[in-house]
């Protein structure tokens, strides 16, 4: 498994602003993912962030809205840009630390946009 931390744990933001969420892992991992969980909904993959390459975005998510950085094997950031109330969600990072494809999740960042 892996120990994953996220900052901030929660935030309340004004529409039109941007928020950067940090994800830190206690071990080096190649594969890191960002998910969104809207209120009462399940998890939807935003993008895959592998170190040394550009993030790969899922259908419906674009880099201008959700830019991702992956500067090393233990850290990544997701920015939610030009926020609107529809962006209010929990944002989660996850990692695959081993060879068996089991994903482990961070505690999440609860974002509220007013």
């Amino acid at each position: 498994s892996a120990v994953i931390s996220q900052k901030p744990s929660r935030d309340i933001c004004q529409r039109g602003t941007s928020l950067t969420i940090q994800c830190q892992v206690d071990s080096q991992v190649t594969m890191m993912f960002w998910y969104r969980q809207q209120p009462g909904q399940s998890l939807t993959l935003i993008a895959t962030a592998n170190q040394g390459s550009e993030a790969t975005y899922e259908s419906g998510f674009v880099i201008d809205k959700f830019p991702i950085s992956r500067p090393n094997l233990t850290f990544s950031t997701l920015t939610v840009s030009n926020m609107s109330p529809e962006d209010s969600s929990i944002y989660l990072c996850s990692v695959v630390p081993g060879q068996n494809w089991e994903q482990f999740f961070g505690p999440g960042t609860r974002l509220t946009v007013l």
Partner: protein
Amino acid sequence: EDQVTQSPEALRLQEGESSSLNCSYTVSGLRGLFWYRQDPGKGPEFLFTLYSAGEEKEKERLKATLTKKESFLHITAPKPEDSATYLCAVQTIYNTDKLIFGTGTRLQVFP
């Protein structure tokens, strides 16, 4: 289109009352099926991975089984601390990076 459906949406049990949660899937090629537990305000906690039909895994009061079309999470003699949302997710052989999640079953166990 790859799809995962969980039922029931919500389940209320008396402490000690055993039951099962269902996860039905339609995918082009299954590589693995994952079960997670999610407590309110927290990230999902990994429980099990199942790879092939007939496989079973157990952890305390939980047992997960897999067939070619669905998976069951059996909860034996549940306790109030088992209350949580249980999520299943599938991984296909064509895109091993991606987990496709169901909408979850919200379980409440009353003393």
